Protein backbone atom coordinates (compact mmCIF):
# COMPACT_ATOMS: atom_id res chain seq x y z
CA UNK A 1 0.00 0.00 0.00
CA UNK A 2 2.91 2.35 0.50
CA UNK A 3 6.43 2.66 -0.79
CA UNK A 4 7.81 0.61 2.11
CA UNK A 5 6.23 -2.61 0.79
CA UNK A 6 8.55 -4.77 -1.31
CA UNK A 7 7.44 -5.80 -4.79
CA UNK A 8 5.83 -9.26 -4.79
CA UNK A 9 4.86 -9.95 -8.37
CA UNK A 10 6.27 -8.56 -11.58
CA UNK A 11 5.16 -9.03 -15.18
CA UNK A 12 7.83 -7.66 -17.51
CA UNK A 13 6.87 -7.14 -21.16
CA UNK A 14 4.78 -10.27 -21.20
CA UNK A 15 3.55 -11.11 -24.69
CA UNK A 16 1.28 -13.96 -25.63
CA UNK A 17 0.44 -15.06 -29.13
CA UNK A 18 -1.81 -18.09 -29.55
CA UNK A 19 -1.09 -20.36 -32.47
CA UNK A 20 1.38 -19.33 -35.15
CA UNK A 21 4.37 -17.31 -33.88
CA UNK A 22 3.87 -14.44 -36.33
CA UNK A 23 0.29 -14.61 -37.58
CA UNK A 24 -1.39 -16.13 -34.50
CA UNK A 25 -3.81 -14.26 -32.30
CA UNK A 26 -2.03 -11.64 -30.20
CA UNK A 27 -3.71 -11.77 -26.77
CA UNK A 28 -1.17 -9.80 -24.73
CA UNK A 29 1.33 -7.29 -26.06
CA UNK A 30 4.30 -6.31 -23.87
CA UNK A 31 2.19 -6.28 -20.75
CA UNK A 32 3.87 -4.71 -17.70
CA UNK A 33 2.61 -4.94 -14.16
CA UNK A 34 4.16 -4.81 -10.75
CA UNK A 35 2.30 -5.63 -7.55
CA UNK A 36 3.47 -4.76 -4.03
CA UNK A 37 3.37 -7.25 -1.22
CA UNK A 38 0.01 -7.43 0.56
CA UNK A 39 -1.70 -5.20 -1.95
CA UNK A 40 -4.89 -5.92 -3.80
CA UNK A 41 -4.82 -5.25 -7.51
CA UNK A 42 -7.84 -5.56 -9.76
CA UNK A 43 -7.44 -6.08 -13.47
CA UNK A 44 -10.52 -4.80 -15.30
CA UNK A 45 -11.30 -5.07 -18.97
CA UNK A 46 -13.82 -6.09 -21.58
CA UNK A 47 -14.38 -9.74 -22.24
CA UNK A 48 -11.72 -11.23 -24.51
CA UNK A 49 -9.07 -8.58 -23.80
CA UNK A 50 -6.58 -11.05 -22.37
CA UNK A 51 -7.24 -10.94 -18.61
CA UNK A 52 -7.42 -14.69 -18.14
CA UNK A 53 -4.44 -15.13 -20.40
CA UNK A 54 -2.41 -12.83 -18.14
CA UNK A 55 -3.56 -14.65 -15.00
CA UNK A 56 -2.93 -18.10 -16.46
CA UNK A 57 0.59 -17.07 -17.41
CA UNK A 58 1.24 -15.82 -13.88
CA UNK A 59 -0.22 -19.08 -12.54
CA UNK A 60 2.14 -21.01 -14.80
CA UNK A 61 -0.72 -22.75 -16.58
CA UNK A 62 0.07 -20.99 -19.83
CA UNK A 63 3.47 -20.23 -21.32
CA UNK A 64 4.26 -16.62 -22.30
CA UNK A 65 5.53 -16.16 -25.86
CA UNK A 66 8.06 -13.70 -24.48
CA UNK A 67 8.61 -11.66 -21.33
CA UNK A 68 9.28 -12.57 -17.74
CA UNK A 69 7.14 -13.20 -14.64
CA UNK A 70 8.78 -12.94 -11.24
CA UNK A 71 7.51 -13.74 -7.75
CA UNK A 72 9.76 -12.49 -4.96
CA UNK A 73 12.43 -11.77 -7.53
CA UNK A 74 12.48 -15.35 -8.82
CA UNK A 75 11.39 -16.19 -12.31
CA UNK A 76 8.25 -18.25 -12.68
CA UNK A 77 8.62 -21.23 -15.01
CA UNK A 78 5.51 -23.26 -14.21
CA UNK A 79 2.71 -23.70 -11.72
CA UNK A 80 3.66 -23.75 -8.06
CA UNK A 81 2.31 -23.60 -4.54
CA UNK A 82 3.57 -20.06 -4.02
CA UNK A 83 0.60 -18.96 -6.14
CA UNK A 84 -2.95 -20.00 -5.31
CA UNK A 85 -5.66 -19.78 -7.97
CA UNK A 86 -9.42 -19.39 -7.69
CA UNK A 87 -11.13 -19.99 -11.03
CA UNK A 88 -14.41 -18.62 -12.32
CA UNK A 89 -15.83 -22.07 -12.94
CA UNK A 90 -16.61 -24.41 -10.06
CA UNK A 91 -13.54 -26.53 -9.53
CA UNK A 92 -14.33 -28.63 -6.47
CA UNK A 93 -13.86 -32.39 -6.81
CA UNK A 94 -17.47 -33.65 -6.85
CA UNK A 95 -16.60 -37.02 -5.26
CA UNK A 96 -15.08 -35.38 -2.19
CA UNK A 97 -16.85 -33.72 0.72
CA UNK A 98 -16.34 -30.05 1.44
CA UNK A 99 -13.70 -30.79 4.09
CA UNK A 100 -11.97 -33.34 1.86
CA UNK A 101 -11.89 -30.77 -0.92
CA UNK A 102 -9.91 -28.40 1.28
CA UNK A 103 -7.70 -31.25 2.51
CA UNK A 104 -7.11 -32.06 -1.15
CA UNK A 105 -4.61 -29.18 -1.26
CA UNK A 106 -2.70 -30.68 1.67
CA UNK A 107 -2.36 -34.35 0.65
CA UNK A 108 1.17 -35.59 1.26
CA UNK A 109 1.90 -32.44 3.28
CA UNK A 110 0.54 -33.32 6.70
CA UNK A 111 -0.93 -36.36 8.42
CA UNK A 112 -4.67 -36.92 8.20
CA UNK A 113 -5.57 -35.41 11.57
CA UNK A 114 -3.56 -32.26 10.95
CA UNK A 115 -5.09 -31.91 7.48
CA UNK A 116 -8.57 -32.06 8.96
CA UNK A 117 -7.75 -29.38 11.53
CA UNK A 118 -6.39 -27.01 8.89
CA UNK A 119 -9.36 -27.70 6.61
CA UNK A 120 -11.88 -26.95 9.34
CA UNK A 121 -10.03 -23.77 10.30
CA UNK A 122 -10.28 -22.48 6.77
CA UNK A 123 -13.88 -23.56 6.34
CA UNK A 124 -14.72 -21.55 9.43
CA UNK A 125 -12.87 -18.62 7.95
CA UNK A 126 -15.21 -18.63 4.95
CA UNK A 127 -18.24 -19.31 7.13
CA UNK A 128 -18.77 -22.93 6.12
CA UNK A 129 -17.75 -24.70 9.33
CA UNK A 130 -21.11 -26.48 9.45
CA UNK A 131 -20.86 -27.85 5.92
CA UNK A 132 -17.70 -29.96 6.24
CA UNK A 133 -19.54 -33.21 5.48
CA UNK A 134 -21.62 -31.90 2.56
CA UNK A 135 -20.88 -32.68 -1.07
CA UNK A 136 -20.32 -29.87 -3.61
CA UNK A 137 -23.57 -30.73 -5.41
CA UNK A 138 -25.43 -29.85 -2.21
CA UNK A 139 -23.97 -26.32 -2.14
CA UNK A 140 -24.97 -23.09 -3.87
CA UNK A 141 -22.56 -21.44 -6.30
CA UNK A 142 -21.43 -18.90 -3.72
CA UNK A 143 -20.73 -21.61 -1.17
CA UNK A 144 -18.71 -23.60 -3.70
CA UNK A 145 -16.56 -20.57 -4.43
CA UNK A 146 -16.05 -20.07 -0.70
CA UNK A 147 -14.79 -23.66 -0.44
CA UNK A 148 -12.48 -22.98 -3.38
CA UNK A 149 -11.16 -19.90 -1.58
CA UNK A 150 -10.65 -21.94 1.60
CA UNK A 151 -8.77 -24.54 -0.43
CA UNK A 152 -6.54 -21.90 -1.99
CA UNK A 153 -5.75 -20.27 1.35
CA UNK A 154 -5.14 -23.53 3.22
CA UNK A 155 -1.61 -24.02 1.92
CA UNK A 156 -0.59 -20.40 2.42
CA UNK A 157 0.41 -19.24 -1.06
CA UNK A 158 2.17 -15.91 -1.22
CA UNK A 159 0.00 -14.66 -4.03
CA UNK A 160 -3.68 -15.31 -4.63
CA UNK A 161 -4.81 -15.17 -8.25
CA UNK A 162 -8.55 -14.85 -8.77
CA UNK A 163 -10.14 -15.05 -12.23
CA UNK A 164 -13.66 -13.58 -12.02
CA UNK A 165 -14.40 -15.84 -9.06
CA UNK A 166 -17.80 -14.24 -8.44
CA UNK A 167 -18.72 -13.75 -12.08
CA UNK A 168 -21.33 -16.51 -12.10
CA UNK A 169 -23.05 -15.42 -8.88
CA UNK A 170 -26.18 -13.31 -8.45
CA UNK A 171 -25.72 -9.68 -7.36
CA UNK A 172 -26.66 -10.17 -3.69
CA UNK A 173 -24.36 -13.15 -3.24
CA UNK A 174 -21.62 -11.29 -5.08
CA UNK A 175 -21.80 -8.39 -2.61
CA UNK A 176 -21.56 -10.78 0.33
CA UNK A 177 -18.62 -12.61 -1.23
CA UNK A 178 -16.79 -9.36 -1.89
CA UNK A 179 -17.16 -8.30 1.75
CA UNK A 180 -16.04 -11.74 2.92
CA UNK A 181 -13.01 -11.65 0.65
CA UNK A 182 -11.96 -8.24 1.99
CA UNK A 183 -12.30 -9.47 5.57
CA UNK A 184 -10.12 -12.50 4.84
CA UNK A 185 -7.62 -10.34 3.01
CA UNK A 186 -7.45 -7.93 5.97
CA UNK A 187 -6.82 -10.80 8.38
CA UNK A 188 -4.42 -12.77 6.24
CA UNK A 189 -2.26 -10.14 4.62
CA UNK A 190 -2.15 -11.52 1.14
CA UNK A 191 -1.08 -10.28 -2.25
CA UNK A 192 -4.06 -10.54 -4.56
CA UNK A 193 -4.39 -10.23 -8.32
CA UNK A 194 -8.12 -10.12 -8.99
CA UNK A 195 -9.64 -10.23 -12.44
CA UNK A 196 -13.07 -8.87 -13.19
CA UNK A 197 -15.10 -7.22 -15.91
CA UNK A 198 -17.18 -5.48 -13.25
CA UNK A 199 -15.94 -1.95 -12.52
CA UNK A 200 -17.84 -1.66 -9.27
CA UNK A 201 -16.26 -4.88 -8.02
CA UNK A 202 -12.81 -3.54 -8.83
CA UNK A 203 -13.42 -0.25 -7.02
CA UNK A 204 -14.86 -1.97 -3.96
CA UNK A 205 -12.05 -4.47 -3.55
CA UNK A 206 -8.80 -3.08 -4.83
CA UNK A 207 -5.99 -0.75 -3.87
CA UNK A 208 -5.28 -0.26 -7.55
CA UNK A 209 -7.62 -0.80 -10.46
CA UNK A 210 -5.96 -1.41 -13.78
CA UNK A 211 -8.03 -0.99 -16.88
CA UNK A 212 -7.06 -3.01 -19.93
CA UNK A 213 -7.73 -2.04 -23.51
CA UNK A 214 -9.39 -4.42 -25.94
CA UNK A 215 -7.16 -7.07 -27.49
CA UNK A 216 -4.22 -7.12 -27.56
CA UNK A 217 -4.29 -6.40 -23.85
CA UNK A 218 -2.41 -3.32 -22.82
CA UNK A 219 -2.82 -1.10 -19.79
CA UNK A 220 -5.03 1.83 -20.66
CA UNK A 221 -5.54 3.45 -17.30
CA UNK A 222 -4.53 2.83 -13.76
CA UNK A 223 -6.17 4.48 -10.78
CA UNK A 224 -5.41 4.25 -7.09
CA UNK A 225 -8.51 3.38 -5.08
CA UNK A 226 -7.90 5.51 -2.00
CA UNK A 227 -11.11 4.53 -0.22
CA UNK A 228 -10.65 3.96 3.52
CA UNK A 229 -10.41 0.41 4.86
CA UNK A 230 -11.94 -1.70 6.22
CA UNK A 231 -14.66 -1.30 3.61
CA UNK A 232 -18.25 -2.45 4.05
CA UNK A 233 -21.11 -2.50 1.60
CA UNK A 234 -22.33 0.92 2.78
CA UNK A 235 -19.31 2.50 1.11
CA UNK A 236 -20.79 1.75 -2.32
CA UNK A 237 -23.17 4.68 -2.11
CA UNK A 238 -20.53 7.22 -1.02
CA UNK A 239 -19.63 10.11 -3.31
CA UNK A 240 -15.97 9.05 -3.28
CA UNK A 241 -16.85 5.53 -4.46
CA UNK A 242 -19.12 6.83 -7.19
CA UNK A 243 -16.48 9.27 -8.40
CA UNK A 244 -13.88 6.50 -8.78
CA UNK A 245 -16.40 4.36 -10.59
CA UNK A 246 -17.23 7.22 -12.98
CA UNK A 247 -13.56 7.80 -13.64
CA UNK A 248 -13.09 4.19 -14.75
CA UNK A 249 -16.34 4.14 -16.69
CA UNK A 250 -15.49 7.20 -18.72
CA UNK A 251 -12.14 5.67 -19.61
CA UNK A 252 -13.95 2.56 -20.81
CA UNK A 253 -16.36 4.62 -22.90
CA UNK A 254 -13.54 6.71 -24.35
CA UNK A 255 -12.29 3.58 -26.06
CA UNK A 256 -15.62 3.27 -27.84
CA UNK A 257 -16.66 -0.30 -27.01
Amino acid at each position, binding site marked *: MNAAQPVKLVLDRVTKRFGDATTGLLALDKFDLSIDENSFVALVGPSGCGKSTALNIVAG*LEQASSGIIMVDGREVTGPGRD*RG*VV*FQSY*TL*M*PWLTVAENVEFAL*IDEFDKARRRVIALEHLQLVGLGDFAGHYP*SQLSGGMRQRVAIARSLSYRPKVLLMDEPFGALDAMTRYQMQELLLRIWDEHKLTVLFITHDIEEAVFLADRAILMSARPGRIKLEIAIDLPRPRGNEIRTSEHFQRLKRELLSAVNAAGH
Partner: protein
Amino acid sequence: MLRDLSALKENVVSLASFVVIIVIWWVVATFGSIPAFILPSPVAVVSATLERAVDGLLWSDSLASASRVLIGFLIAAATALPLGILMGASPLARAAAEPLIGFIRYMPVSAFLPLTLIWAGIEEAQKWLLIWIGTFFSQTMMFMDAVKRVPVDLLNVGHTLGFSKAKILRRIILPWAMPGIWDALRITLAWSWSWLILAELVAAGMGLGYRMSVDQRYLRTAEIFSAVIFIGLIGLASDQMMKFAGRKLFSWAEGGKL
Protein backbone atom coordinates in the same frame (compact mmCIF):
# COMPACT_ATOMS: atom_id res chain seq x y z
CA MET B 1 -47.18 -40.58 -1.91
CA LEU B 2 -47.98 -39.46 -5.42
CA ARG B 3 -44.56 -40.61 -6.64
CA ASP B 4 -44.96 -44.00 -4.97
CA LEU B 5 -48.32 -44.46 -6.58
CA SER B 6 -47.07 -43.65 -10.07
CA ALA B 7 -44.06 -45.93 -9.59
CA LEU B 8 -46.45 -48.68 -8.58
CA LYS B 9 -48.60 -47.98 -11.62
CA GLU B 10 -45.52 -48.17 -13.82
CA ASN B 11 -44.60 -51.58 -12.42
CA VAL B 12 -48.13 -52.86 -12.86
CA VAL B 13 -48.19 -51.70 -16.49
CA SER B 14 -44.81 -53.29 -17.31
CA LEU B 15 -45.82 -56.53 -15.62
CA ALA B 16 -49.13 -56.50 -17.48
CA SER B 17 -47.37 -56.23 -20.85
CA PHE B 18 -45.31 -59.33 -20.00
CA VAL B 19 -48.44 -61.21 -19.03
CA VAL B 20 -50.25 -60.16 -22.20
CA ILE B 21 -47.39 -61.36 -24.42
CA ILE B 22 -47.20 -64.70 -22.62
CA VAL B 23 -50.95 -65.19 -22.84
CA ILE B 24 -50.94 -64.44 -26.59
CA TRP B 25 -47.99 -66.82 -27.01
CA TRP B 26 -49.83 -69.51 -25.07
CA VAL B 27 -53.05 -69.06 -27.05
CA VAL B 28 -51.29 -69.15 -30.42
CA ALA B 29 -49.16 -72.18 -29.47
CA THR B 30 -52.06 -74.14 -27.98
CA PHE B 31 -54.96 -73.32 -30.33
CA GLY B 32 -53.10 -72.30 -33.46
CA SER B 33 -52.07 -74.97 -35.91
CA ILE B 34 -48.33 -74.30 -35.53
CA PRO B 35 -46.25 -77.44 -34.85
CA ALA B 36 -44.53 -77.55 -31.46
CA PHE B 37 -41.05 -77.77 -32.96
CA ILE B 38 -41.65 -74.31 -34.49
CA LEU B 39 -43.41 -72.68 -31.56
CA PRO B 40 -43.53 -74.63 -28.28
CA SER B 41 -46.06 -73.46 -25.70
CA PRO B 42 -44.92 -71.55 -22.60
CA VAL B 43 -45.91 -74.56 -20.53
CA ALA B 44 -43.55 -76.79 -22.53
CA VAL B 45 -40.74 -74.22 -22.11
CA VAL B 46 -41.25 -74.08 -18.34
CA SER B 47 -41.31 -77.86 -18.03
CA ALA B 48 -38.17 -78.15 -20.20
CA THR B 49 -36.46 -75.65 -17.92
CA LEU B 50 -37.53 -77.55 -14.81
CA GLU B 51 -36.32 -80.82 -16.27
CA ARG B 52 -32.89 -79.38 -17.03
CA ALA B 53 -32.77 -77.76 -13.59
CA VAL B 54 -33.60 -81.03 -11.86
CA ASP B 55 -31.12 -83.17 -13.79
CA GLY B 56 -28.46 -80.46 -13.18
CA LEU B 57 -27.61 -79.78 -16.81
CA LEU B 58 -28.88 -76.20 -16.57
CA TRP B 59 -26.54 -75.43 -13.71
CA SER B 60 -23.42 -77.07 -15.08
CA ASP B 61 -23.95 -75.38 -18.47
CA SER B 62 -24.61 -72.00 -16.83
CA LEU B 63 -21.52 -72.33 -14.69
CA ALA B 64 -19.35 -73.25 -17.67
CA SER B 65 -20.70 -70.32 -19.72
CA ALA B 66 -20.58 -67.80 -16.88
CA SER B 67 -16.98 -68.59 -16.00
CA ARG B 68 -15.96 -68.23 -19.66
CA VAL B 69 -17.71 -64.88 -19.87
CA LEU B 70 -16.12 -63.72 -16.65
CA ILE B 71 -12.59 -64.73 -17.60
CA GLY B 72 -12.82 -63.39 -21.16
CA PHE B 73 -14.39 -60.18 -19.93
CA LEU B 74 -11.80 -59.66 -17.20
CA ILE B 75 -8.91 -60.25 -19.61
CA ALA B 76 -10.44 -57.69 -21.97
CA ALA B 77 -11.00 -55.15 -19.19
CA ALA B 78 -7.53 -55.65 -17.73
CA THR B 79 -5.89 -55.02 -21.10
CA ALA B 80 -8.22 -52.21 -22.19
CA LEU B 81 -7.93 -50.22 -18.95
CA PRO B 82 -4.25 -49.25 -19.14
CA LEU B 83 -4.44 -48.55 -22.87
CA GLY B 84 -7.70 -46.59 -22.64
CA ILE B 85 -6.44 -44.49 -19.73
CA LEU B 86 -3.15 -43.84 -21.51
CA MET B 87 -4.97 -42.79 -24.68
CA GLY B 88 -7.31 -40.56 -22.70
CA ALA B 89 -4.50 -38.85 -20.85
CA SER B 90 -1.87 -38.59 -23.58
CA PRO B 91 -2.60 -36.96 -26.96
CA LEU B 92 0.45 -38.72 -28.36
CA ALA B 93 -0.84 -42.18 -27.42
CA ARG B 94 -4.23 -41.16 -28.74
CA ALA B 95 -2.82 -40.11 -32.11
CA ALA B 96 -0.92 -43.38 -32.34
CA ALA B 97 -3.69 -45.80 -31.40
CA GLU B 98 -7.09 -44.18 -31.96
CA PRO B 99 -7.34 -44.52 -35.78
CA LEU B 100 -6.26 -48.16 -35.67
CA ILE B 101 -8.54 -49.17 -32.83
CA GLY B 102 -11.39 -47.12 -34.23
CA PHE B 103 -11.02 -49.04 -37.50
CA ILE B 104 -10.81 -52.50 -35.94
CA ARG B 105 -13.89 -51.69 -33.92
CA TYR B 106 -15.94 -51.54 -37.10
CA MET B 107 -14.89 -54.98 -38.27
CA PRO B 108 -17.64 -57.56 -37.65
CA VAL B 109 -16.64 -59.59 -34.61
CA SER B 110 -18.39 -62.72 -35.88
CA ALA B 111 -16.09 -62.65 -38.92
CA PHE B 112 -13.16 -63.28 -36.56
CA LEU B 113 -14.67 -66.59 -35.50
CA PRO B 114 -12.78 -68.74 -38.06
CA LEU B 115 -9.55 -67.03 -37.08
CA THR B 116 -10.13 -67.66 -33.37
CA LEU B 117 -10.55 -71.36 -34.18
CA ILE B 118 -7.30 -71.39 -36.16
CA TRP B 119 -5.41 -69.40 -33.54
CA ALA B 120 -6.80 -70.80 -30.32
CA GLY B 121 -8.33 -74.17 -31.12
CA ILE B 122 -11.68 -75.24 -29.74
CA GLU B 123 -10.95 -75.13 -26.03
CA GLU B 124 -11.48 -72.37 -23.45
CA ALA B 125 -8.89 -70.00 -24.91
CA GLN B 126 -10.91 -69.66 -28.10
CA LYS B 127 -13.95 -68.46 -26.15
CA TRP B 128 -11.85 -65.93 -24.25
CA LEU B 129 -10.26 -64.74 -27.47
CA LEU B 130 -13.59 -64.12 -29.21
CA ILE B 131 -14.90 -62.24 -26.16
CA TRP B 132 -11.67 -60.25 -26.07
CA ILE B 133 -11.94 -59.32 -29.75
CA GLY B 134 -15.59 -58.41 -29.26
CA THR B 135 -15.07 -56.12 -26.27
CA PHE B 136 -11.45 -54.95 -25.97
CA PHE B 137 -11.50 -52.36 -28.74
CA SER B 138 -14.78 -50.79 -27.74
CA GLN B 139 -13.80 -50.82 -24.08
CA THR B 140 -10.56 -49.04 -24.91
CA MET B 141 -12.41 -46.32 -26.78
CA MET B 142 -14.99 -45.92 -24.02
CA PHE B 143 -12.35 -45.76 -21.28
CA MET B 144 -10.42 -43.22 -23.35
CA ASP B 145 -13.55 -41.14 -23.69
CA ALA B 146 -14.28 -41.21 -19.96
CA VAL B 147 -10.74 -40.07 -19.18
CA LYS B 148 -10.66 -37.45 -21.93
CA ARG B 149 -13.74 -35.74 -20.56
CA VAL B 150 -12.07 -34.61 -17.32
CA PRO B 151 -12.60 -30.83 -17.23
CA VAL B 152 -9.42 -28.85 -17.91
CA ASP B 153 -10.15 -26.65 -14.90
CA LEU B 154 -9.96 -29.63 -12.55
CA LEU B 155 -6.62 -30.63 -14.06
CA ASN B 156 -5.47 -27.04 -13.62
CA VAL B 157 -6.36 -27.23 -9.93
CA GLY B 158 -3.95 -30.15 -9.71
CA HIS B 159 -1.26 -28.21 -11.54
CA THR B 160 -1.61 -25.12 -9.36
CA LEU B 161 -1.39 -27.34 -6.28
CA GLY B 162 1.97 -28.56 -7.57
CA PHE B 163 0.76 -32.13 -8.18
CA SER B 164 2.95 -34.44 -10.25
CA LYS B 165 1.51 -36.14 -13.34
CA ALA B 166 1.08 -39.39 -11.44
CA LYS B 167 -0.72 -37.61 -8.62
CA ILE B 168 -3.04 -35.83 -11.06
CA LEU B 169 -3.84 -39.19 -12.64
CA ARG B 170 -4.53 -40.84 -9.31
CA ARG B 171 -6.27 -37.98 -7.52
CA ILE B 172 -8.21 -36.26 -10.31
CA ILE B 173 -8.39 -38.14 -13.61
CA LEU B 174 -9.21 -41.63 -12.32
CA PRO B 175 -11.81 -40.62 -9.72
CA TRP B 176 -13.49 -38.43 -12.32
CA ALA B 177 -13.48 -41.15 -14.97
CA MET B 178 -14.58 -44.02 -12.71
CA PRO B 179 -18.35 -43.70 -13.25
CA GLY B 180 -17.85 -43.65 -17.02
CA ILE B 181 -15.46 -46.61 -16.83
CA TRP B 182 -17.95 -48.54 -14.72
CA ASP B 183 -20.70 -47.84 -17.24
CA ALA B 184 -18.51 -49.07 -20.09
CA LEU B 185 -17.83 -52.27 -18.14
CA ARG B 186 -21.52 -52.78 -17.53
CA ILE B 187 -22.40 -52.38 -21.22
CA THR B 188 -19.59 -54.60 -22.51
CA LEU B 189 -20.34 -57.35 -19.99
CA ALA B 190 -23.67 -57.80 -21.74
CA TRP B 191 -21.90 -58.00 -25.11
CA SER B 192 -19.56 -60.66 -23.76
CA TRP B 193 -22.52 -63.01 -23.40
CA SER B 194 -23.42 -62.65 -27.08
CA TRP B 195 -19.89 -63.43 -28.24
CA LEU B 196 -19.63 -66.37 -25.89
CA ILE B 197 -22.85 -67.96 -27.12
CA LEU B 198 -21.64 -67.53 -30.67
CA ALA B 199 -18.34 -69.25 -29.81
CA GLU B 200 -20.10 -72.06 -27.97
CA LEU B 201 -22.55 -72.67 -30.81
CA VAL B 202 -19.63 -73.43 -33.08
CA ALA B 203 -17.31 -75.40 -30.86
CA ALA B 204 -17.72 -76.54 -27.28
CA GLY B 205 -18.37 -79.60 -25.13
CA MET B 206 -20.61 -77.85 -22.62
CA GLY B 207 -22.18 -74.49 -21.92
CA LEU B 208 -25.54 -72.93 -22.72
CA GLY B 209 -24.61 -72.18 -26.33
CA TYR B 210 -23.30 -75.68 -26.91
CA ARG B 211 -26.49 -77.17 -25.44
CA MET B 212 -28.57 -75.13 -27.88
CA SER B 213 -26.56 -76.42 -30.83
CA VAL B 214 -27.32 -79.99 -29.73
CA ASP B 215 -30.99 -79.19 -29.07
CA GLN B 216 -31.22 -77.74 -32.56
CA ARG B 217 -30.09 -81.03 -34.09
CA TYR B 218 -32.88 -82.89 -32.26
CA LEU B 219 -35.46 -80.13 -32.84
CA ARG B 220 -35.85 -79.62 -29.08
CA THR B 221 -37.27 -76.15 -29.59
CA ALA B 222 -38.71 -75.81 -26.08
CA GLU B 223 -35.21 -76.38 -24.67
CA ILE B 224 -33.79 -73.72 -26.99
CA PHE B 225 -36.49 -71.25 -25.92
CA SER B 226 -35.66 -72.08 -22.33
CA ALA B 227 -31.94 -71.42 -22.85
CA VAL B 228 -32.49 -68.14 -24.69
CA ILE B 229 -34.77 -66.82 -21.96
CA PHE B 230 -32.43 -68.05 -19.24
CA ILE B 231 -29.45 -66.27 -20.82
CA GLY B 232 -31.55 -63.12 -21.04
CA LEU B 233 -32.36 -63.40 -17.33
CA ILE B 234 -28.70 -63.86 -16.38
CA GLY B 235 -27.83 -60.77 -18.46
CA LEU B 236 -30.62 -58.74 -16.89
CA ALA B 237 -29.62 -59.76 -13.38
CA SER B 238 -25.92 -58.95 -13.83
CA ASP B 239 -26.76 -55.63 -15.48
CA GLN B 240 -29.04 -54.66 -12.61
CA MET B 241 -26.37 -55.64 -10.09
CA MET B 242 -23.75 -53.52 -11.86
CA LYS B 243 -26.17 -50.62 -12.04
CA PHE B 244 -26.96 -50.89 -8.35
CA ALA B 245 -23.30 -51.16 -7.36
CA GLY B 246 -22.45 -48.20 -9.61
CA ARG B 247 -25.09 -46.07 -7.95
CA LYS B 248 -23.73 -46.97 -4.52
CA LEU B 249 -20.08 -46.47 -5.47
CA PHE B 250 -20.48 -43.28 -7.49
CA SER B 251 -23.49 -41.60 -5.96
CA TRP B 252 -21.75 -38.24 -6.46
CA ALA B 253 -22.13 -38.59 -10.22
CA GLU B 254 -25.91 -39.04 -10.12
CA GLY B 255 -27.71 -36.43 -12.18
CA GLY B 256 -24.66 -34.81 -13.77
CA LYS B 257 -21.18 -34.44 -12.45
CA LEU B 258 -20.82 -30.77 -11.57
